[in-house]
C-alpha cells in the first residue's frame, strides 16, 4: 500500500518544483521524495501499528523529466500537476512498515467497514487490498480453504492453509479483482515480478494461512497431536499446519510420497466434469400424493447450457437427441462415470449402479429431504446439475412465526410519550406463509415425523426440533408485556435464535399498527398546515408533516430521507410551527448541521417561519455553560455544527432538549467517531434525522442513523453487520433484506422525485438558493481587496475609476468562488495553502464544499448535473475537486474546447452508458445551443446577475426532451456583495431594474459610500472557526 505525504509535497514546492529534488546523482537508488515517512503513517495503521516492523524496499514509479509523479489523489487535491516529456518507470527506495497478514487484514477490514477512521485519504490500492482481505475472510467463513503443501527449491516441505479458488464463484471474484488491481499494487520491485496474479495469489495465501494459523495457535490445536507417532503422515502434515513452524520433518523419498499423496487427495475436489461437454443431471419430482415415493430421474445436460438436456432413456436408446448433445463424447460412458462419482458423494444413488440401464430412482421422503438440504450443494459444486422443485427453500414453505401486538390507541397512552420504551403486549402465532397453523395441526405434523409434509396441497419443510419449539410456544401461549423496543428486538432476532423459526411478519392494532402501516395508509392522523407557515406545503410534504407529527406523539425517532429538492427543511419547519400552535411551552430543538449549511437554515427559518427564534451556537465567542443554557432556553431553535458537538458535549448535554435534529445525517455514518458518539449521547425526547442519502455506500450508514433515531433498535454495530449488512451487501440475501426493510420501514420516510405521487406534485422546475459562507482564507482575501481598493477607487475618477471598480468586483467574485482564483498565474500548486497544511481544494471554499455535498446526493441517486461557472480556472478546479472528492469523472467544456471534442462531450454526457455524470461548463461556452437533457440538476456556481443569461444556461437541461423536474441551485455567498445583489433582484428594486441586462457595469456608477456598503463584508459572511 502506497503512502505519500502532502505536507512534504508542499515543503518541496517552496523550493521550486517539488519533483526536482527527487534524486541525487550520488545515490544509485534514490529515496522517493514525497513518500510518507514511517512516523507519518504509523498512527494510521491503528492497532496494526503495534505489531509492525520497519523496513525498506525498492519500488517502481512513473516519472518524467521533473521527477516522480504524485498520486492521482494528490494531483487532484492540488488541482493538477504539469508534465514534462514522456513518462517512464523509475526505481526508488521507500521506507516500509510490515505487519503480519492477519493484522493487515484487521486494518484493511476496519478501513473497509469504517470502524477505523483514517486521517489520511485511502488510496485505490489500499481499498483494493481491503477487498482482497474481505475475499479471504469470506472464503474462510464459508469454509472454502484447504490445507496444502509446498516443496521449496531446497527440497524442504512446508504446510500451509490456502483459499480454495477452483470454483466458479472464486474464478469470478479473482477475475474481478485482477481486473481492478491498480498498477501501483504491482510496483514493488521484488521476486513476485510484474504480473498481477502471483502478487494477488501470494496475498491470498498469506492472509488465509495466517488467519487460520493464528486461531489454531491461540486455541492450542497443536496439543491434539501431542504424543502421536511423528512418522504418521497425518501427524507429519498437521505438525506443519497447527503451529508456527510450517516445516515438515521429512526428507528424500518420503517428501515426494507425502506431497504426492496430498496432491492425490486434494485432486478429489476437482470438478467432475471439468473440460467435459456433458454433466450429470438429477431431477427430483415430488409425488402427487403424500406418502408415495419421490422420483429422481437421471440424465445428462450440456455444460455450456444446462437447459439442453437428455434423459437417461435417451442415452440408453441412443436417440438422435442424445447423439446430437453428446457430440464426440460417448453419452453412455459419461452417464455411468458421472453417476459412479456422484454415488461416492451421495450413497443413496448406489442402487442405480446395480442396474443395467439406470434411469430413475424412487426416494423416500427422508432421502428426498437429505438431497434437498444436505447433498444438493455438494453434488452441484462437484459438477452435477440438481433440479429441485421451485418451492424449495422459499420462506413460504417453511413454518414461521407471526408476532401479534396489542398496543391500544395513541390517546390511551398515559403520561408523556415514551417512544421505543412504550409498553405493549404481544403473543405468537405459528404460520406457513400467511396461513396460521393451529396447535392441533402442529401436533399432527409432529406425529407424522416427516421432514417434508403437505399442508393443504403445499409442501412444507418441517424441522422436528423447530416444530417442537413452536408447539411449546403455543402451548404456553403467554401474552407478554414488554416495551416496543424489546418486542422488536425479540421479533427481529431473539425468537429465531431461540426457536430456529423465522418471523414472517408482525401484526398490530392501535398506534403500533399506524406505525407499521406508515403515513400513506390513512392510519396516521392528518395535521393541518400551520397557519404561520409562509408558503404552501405540497401534498407529499403534508404527508411528511403528518408522519413527523405522529412519531413525535409516540416519542419515536425517525429519518426523513426524501430526495434532495423535495423540501425536507420546510417539512421540519412546519413541524416546529405545528407543535407551537397548541403548546407555547414546548422545549427547544437542537439542530445539528454541517458548517456549510448554517446560513441556509437561518435563511430558511427567516423565510418560512420568521416568528421562530433561533440561535447559532458557533464560533470562538459562543456562550458556554450557564450562558448557553439560558440562551438556548430562550429560543425555539439552536443551530450548531457537527464539529462542535463533540467539543461542547458538556454545554449541549446540560439541556433537556425537546428534540435533536440532524441535517445531512449521513455525517454520522461512521459510528466510532467521537462526533457520532457525542451526538448520540445528547439528551433529547425526540430525534429526527434528515438526509437525502440514508445509505450512500454501506448499510452501516443506515445503522448509524437508526442508532441515533432509536438507540438500540437495530442492536450493536457488529450484530447489525452480522445479521444484515454482510448478508445483504455480500450475498444479496433477499430474506435479510426483507427483514431489515420490515424493521426500519416504520421509522424511515423516503420519497423519490420519481415517485408517481411526488411527480404529480412537483413543478417542472424547482429553483433553490444555496447559501454558503466564506472560509477564513476567503474572508481575509475578500476584506483585503475591499480595504486596499476602495481607497484607490475614491481617489480616481472617470474611466479609470470604473475600470478599478470592475477589476475589484471581478476579484471579489472570484474570491467568493475559491481563494485559488485570486492567486496570480496558473500555477496552482505553488500557490496552494501557504503557511498551513495543504487542505483539500474543496475545503478552502464554502461554495465548493457545499457543491460537493450536493453533488454527492445527485450521484447517490444516479442523476446527472450541469455546473456553470464564469471562470475557466474555476471550471478546472471544480473538475479536479469532483474527481478527488467524489471519485467520479467529469467533463469540462470551455471556450477553448475544439468543436469536435465539444460534440463528443455532449454525446457522452447524453449517453446512458457515459461514466461522467457531471458536466462543468463555462457560462459563455456552454450557456447557449446545447441539448443536455440527461441532467436534471443545474448548479450556477457563480452569478451573472442577469436572470435571462442564467435562464438560458438552465435551459440546457430544462427543454424539450426533459421528462423530469429540473432542480436549479443558485449559489450565493452570504454577507457578501453576492447576497446583496441577489436580494435586490429578488425584491425587484429599482436598482435591480438597472442591474438586469447590464452585467456589473451599474456598480461603477455608485458613489464610494454606496459602493462600500454594497461590498462590505457582513458578519454572517464568514464561516467562524469553531
Amino acid at each position, binding site marked *: 500500500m502506497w503512502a505519500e505525504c502532502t505536507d512534504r509535497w508542499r515543503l518541496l514546492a517552496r523550493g521550486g518544483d517539488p519533483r526536482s529534488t527527487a534524486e541525487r546523482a550520488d545515490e544509485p537508488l534514490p529515496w522517493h521524495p514525497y513518500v510518507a515517512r514511517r512516523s507519518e503513517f504509523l498512527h494510521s495503521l491503528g492497532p496494526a501499528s503495534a505489531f509492525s516492523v520497519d523496513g525498506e524496499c525498492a519500488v517502481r514509479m512513473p516519472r518524467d523529466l521533473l521527477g516522480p509523479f504524485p498520486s492521482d489523489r494528490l494531483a487532484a487535491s492540488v488541482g493538477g500537476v504539469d508534465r514534462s516529456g514522456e513518462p517512464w*518507470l523509475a526505481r526508488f527506495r521507500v521506507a516500509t512498515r510490515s505487519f503480519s497478514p492477519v493484522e493487515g487484514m484487521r486494518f484493511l477490514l476496519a478501513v473497509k467497514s469504517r*470502524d477505523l477512521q483514517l486521517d489520511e485519504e485511502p488510496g485505490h490500492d489500499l481499498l483494493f487490498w481491503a477487498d482482497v482481505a474481505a475475499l479471504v475472510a469470506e472464503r474462510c467463513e464459508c469454509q472454502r480453504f484447504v490445507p496444502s503443501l509446498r516443496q*521449496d527449491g531446497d527440497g524442504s516441505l512446508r504446510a500451509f492453509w490456502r483459499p480454495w479458488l477452483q470454483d466458479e464463484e472464486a474464478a469470478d471474484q479473482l477475475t474481478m479483482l485482477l481486473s481492478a488491481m491498480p498498477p501501483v499494487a504491482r510496483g514493488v520491485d521484488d521476486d513476485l515480478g510484474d504480473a498481477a496474479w502471483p502478487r494477488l495469489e501470494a496475498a491470498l495465501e498469506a492472509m488465509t494461512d495466517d488467519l487460520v494459523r493464528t486461531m489454531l495457535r491461540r486455541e492450542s490445536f497443536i496439543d491434539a497431536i501431542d504424543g502421536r507417532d511423528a512418522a504418521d503422515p497425518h501427524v507429519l502434515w498437521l505438525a506443519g499446519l497447527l503451529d508456527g513452524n510450517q516445516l515438515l520433518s521429512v526428507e528424500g523419498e518420503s517428501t515426494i510420497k507425502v506431497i504426492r499423496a496430498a496432491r492425490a487427495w486434494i485432486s478429489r475436489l476437482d470438478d467432475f466434469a471439468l473440460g467435459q461437454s456433458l454433466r450429470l443431471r438429477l431431477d427430483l419430482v415430488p409425488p402427487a400424493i403424500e406418502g408415495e415415493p419421490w422420483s429422481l430421474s437421471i440424465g445428462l445436460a450440456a455444460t455450456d447450457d444446462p437447459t439442453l438436456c437428455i434423459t437417461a432413456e435417451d442415452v440408453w436408446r441412443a436417440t438422435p437427441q442424445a447423439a446430437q448433445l453428446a457430440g464426440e463424447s460417448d453419452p453412455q460412458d459419461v452417464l455411468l462415470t458421472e453417476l459412479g462419482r456422484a454415488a461416492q458423494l451421495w450413497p443413496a444413488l448406489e442402487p442405480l449402479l446395480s442396474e443395467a440401464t439406470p434411469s430413475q430412482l424412487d426416494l423416500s421422503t427422508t432421502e428426498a429431504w437429505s438431497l434437498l438440504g444436505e447433498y444438493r450443494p455438494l453434488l452441484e459444486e462437484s459438477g452435477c446439475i440438481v433440479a429441485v422443485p421451485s418451492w424449495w427453500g422459499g420462506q413460504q414453505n417453511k413454518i414461521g412465526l407471526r408476532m401479534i401486538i396489542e398496543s391500544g390507541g395513541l390517546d390511551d397512552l398515559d403520561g408523556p410519550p415514551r417512544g421505543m420504551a412504550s409498553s405493549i403486549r404481544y403473543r405468537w402465532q405459528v404460520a406457513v406463509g400467511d396461513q396460521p397453523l393451529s396447535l392441533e395441526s402442529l401436533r399432527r405434523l409432529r406425529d407424522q415425523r416427516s421432514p417434508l409434509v403437505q399442508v393443504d396441497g403445499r409442501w412444507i419443510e418441517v424441522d422436528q426440533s423447530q416444530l417442537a419449539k413452536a408447539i411449546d410456544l403455543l402451548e404456553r401461549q403467554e401474552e407478554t408485556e414488554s416495551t416496543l423496543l424489546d418486542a422488536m428486538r425479540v421479533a427481529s432476532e431473539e425468537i429465531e435464535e431461540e426457536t430456529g423459526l423465522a418471523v414472517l411478519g408482525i401484526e398490530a392494532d392501535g398506534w403500533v399498527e399506524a406505525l407499521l402501516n406508515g403515513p400513506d395508509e390513512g392510519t396516521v392522523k392528518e395535521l393541518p398546515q400551520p397557519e404561520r407557515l409562509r408558503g404552501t406545503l405540497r401534498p407529499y410534504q403534508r404527508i411528511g408533516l403528518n408522519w413527523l407529527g405522529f412519531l413525535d406523539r409516540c416519542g419515536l425517532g425517525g429519518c426523513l430521507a426524501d430526495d434532495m429538492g423535495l423540501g425536507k427543511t420546510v417539512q421540519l419547519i412546519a413541524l416546529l410551527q405545528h407543535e407551537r400552535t397548541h403548546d407555547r411551552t414546548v422545549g427547544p430543538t437542537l439542530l445539528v448541521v454541517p458548517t456549510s449549511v448554517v446560513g441556509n437554515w437561518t435563511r430558511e427559518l427567516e423565510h418560512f417561519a420568521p416568528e421562530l427564534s433561533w440561535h447559532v451556537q458557533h464560533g470562538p465567542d459562543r456562550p458556554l455553560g450557564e450562558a448557553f443554557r439560558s440562551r438556548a432556553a430562550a429560543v425555539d431553535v439552536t443551530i450548531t455544527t457537527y464539529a462542535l458537538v463533540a467539543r461542547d458535549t458538556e454545554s449541549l448535554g446540560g439541556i433537556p432538549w425537546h428534540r435533536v435534529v440532524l441535517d445531512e445525517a449521513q455525517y454520522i455514518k461512521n459510528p466510532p467517531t467521537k462526533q457520532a458518539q457525542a451526538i448520540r449521547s445528547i439528551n433529547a425526547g425526540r430525534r429526527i434525522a434528515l438526509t437525502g442519502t440514508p445509505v450512500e455506500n454501506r448499510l452501516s450508514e443506515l445503522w448509524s442513523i437508526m442508532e441515533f433515531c432509536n438507540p438500540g433498535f437495530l442492536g450493536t454495530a457488529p450484530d447489525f453487520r452480522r445479521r444484515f449488512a454482510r448478508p445483504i451487501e455480500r450475498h444479496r440475501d433477499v430474506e435479510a433484506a426483507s427483514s431489515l426493510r420490515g424493521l426500519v420501514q416504520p421509522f424511515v420516510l423516503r420519497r423519490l422525485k420519481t415517485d408517481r405521487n411526488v411527480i404529480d406534485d412537483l413543478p417542472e422546475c424547482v429553483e433553490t438558493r444555496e447559501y454558503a459562507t466564506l472560509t477564513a482564507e476567503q474572508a481575509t482575501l475578500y476584506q483585503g481587496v475591499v480595504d486596499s481598493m476602495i481607497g484607490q477607487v475614491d481617489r480616481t475618477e472617470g474611466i479609470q475609476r470604473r475600470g478599478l471598480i470592475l477589476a475589484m468586483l471581478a476579484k471579489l467574485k472570484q474570491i467568493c468562488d475559491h481563494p485559488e482564483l485570486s492567486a496570480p498565474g496558473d500555477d496552482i500548486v505553488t500557490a496552494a495553502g501557504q503557511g498551513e497544511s495543504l487542505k483539500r481544494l474543496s475545503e478552502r471554499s464554502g461554495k465548493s464544499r457545499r457543491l460537493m455535498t450536493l453533488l454527492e446526493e445527485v450521484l447517490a441517486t444516479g442523476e446527472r448535473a450541469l455546473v456553470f461557472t464564469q471562470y475557466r480556472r474555476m471550471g478546472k478546479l471544480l473538475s479536479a475537486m469532483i474527481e478527488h472528492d467524489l471519485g467520479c469523472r467529469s467533463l469540462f467544456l470551455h471556450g477553448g474546447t475544439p468543436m469536435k471534442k465539444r460534440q463528443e462531450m455532449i454525446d457522452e454526457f447524453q449517453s446512458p452508458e457515459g461514466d461522467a455524470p457531471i458536466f462543468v461548463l463555462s457560462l459563455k461556452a456552454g450557456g447557449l445551443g446545447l441539448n443536455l437533457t440527461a441532467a436534471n440538476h443545474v448548479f450556477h456556481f457563480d452569478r451573472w446577475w442577469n436572470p435571462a443569461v442564467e435562464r438560458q444556461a438552465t435551459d440546457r437541461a430544462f427543454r424539450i426532451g426533459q421528462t423530469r423536474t429540473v432542480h436549479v441551485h443558485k449559489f450565493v455567498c452570504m454577507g457578501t456583495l453576492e447576497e446583496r445583489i441577489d436580494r435586490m433582484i429578488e425584491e425587484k428594486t429599482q436598482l435591480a431594474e438597472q442591474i438586469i441586462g447590464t452585467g456589473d457595469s451599474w456598480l461603477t456608477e455608485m458613489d464610494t459610500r454606496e459602493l462600500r456598503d454594497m461590498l462590505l463584508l457582513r458578519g454572517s459572511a464568514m464561516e467562524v472557526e469553531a
Partner: protein
Amino acid sequence: MSRADLSSKAPRPSRRRGGRVRLKIEEQQLRDAPVSSIWLKTIESIVGAKSMHDGLLAAKDGAVRSLRVDRGEIAGPVQADAETSLPVAIELPTIDEAGWQRLVEAMACEAIWAAKLLEGEIPAGLGDLFRGCGTPLLPDPEHIKTHVERGGRRDVWRVAALGWIASERFFRDPLAVLAVRGMPCGDLVERISHHRALRTQGETVAHPPVVLDSAVASGPPLADCLEIWWRPHSHVHELERASHASHALLRRLGPSTLEGKFPLSGLLATIYDEAAAEAARLLDAPLGDEDASG
C-alpha cells in the same frame, strides 16, 4: 539355483492342464526390440545358448503357466510334468534412491524423456542415460539371481523359457522394466515433472493451479499503465455468494489418501468450524466488539 548349467536339456513338454502362456512373437523381433534385446542377451549370458534355445521351444509350446512382473522379480510357474509345474524366479536388484535421484535429475534436464515416457515409449538412448548415471537399465548378469524350486542344473531351460516370455512382455510394454527396477513409469514421470517444477519455479505444491485467462492474470504491462498508475482498471463490486454446505470441501475430499492413522478428517472438521467463526468475527468486528460497537 544361480548361474544355471548351460548344457542341461529341456524335455519336451507333455500334456498340460490349466492356463499357459505361449510365446507368439518372432524371435528376431524380440532380439531387435530395445528392451527385449538387452534382456535376452542378459538371460542368455546366464543360462547359455543351448538352454536359451530349449527355453525358446518350451516357451513357444506353452511351458510357462503364467508370468508375474514385480519390483525386483520376474516369476512364474514352468511345467514340470503333465500335472505339476515348478515355480521359477529371476531376481534383479532394484535401483536405490540415490540412483533414481540421479536419473530423475538427468531426465528432468530434457523434456523429451518425460514426453516419451508419457506416450508409453522407451526414449532412444535411455540405456545410455541409465549407464551414464551408474545404473544400467538392466543389471549385469552377475547381479541377477535365478531360482527353480526343487530344481537342479538341468532345469535351467525353465529359466530361459521364463526369460523368453518376459522378453515378450518387455516387447509389448518396454516401460515395465522400470517397475522391475523399482519405479513404475507413472511414478518416474511424476518425479521428473516434480523435479522440473522445482528447477524452473523453485517450488512445487500439492494443490492444483488456478486457471485464469492469461491476459487477466498478467495484467497490462506496467510500462503501459503510467497514466493510470494509481487507479483501479475497474471497480470491485459485490458478488452474490453461492450457498455452501457445512464442511463441503472436507466431505468432498473424503478419507485421506495419506495412509496416516491419526483421525485427520475429524480434526479438520473442528478446524473448519473454528476458522469459519474466526473469519466471521473478523468480518463483523475487525477491531473487536468493543471498538466497533460505537
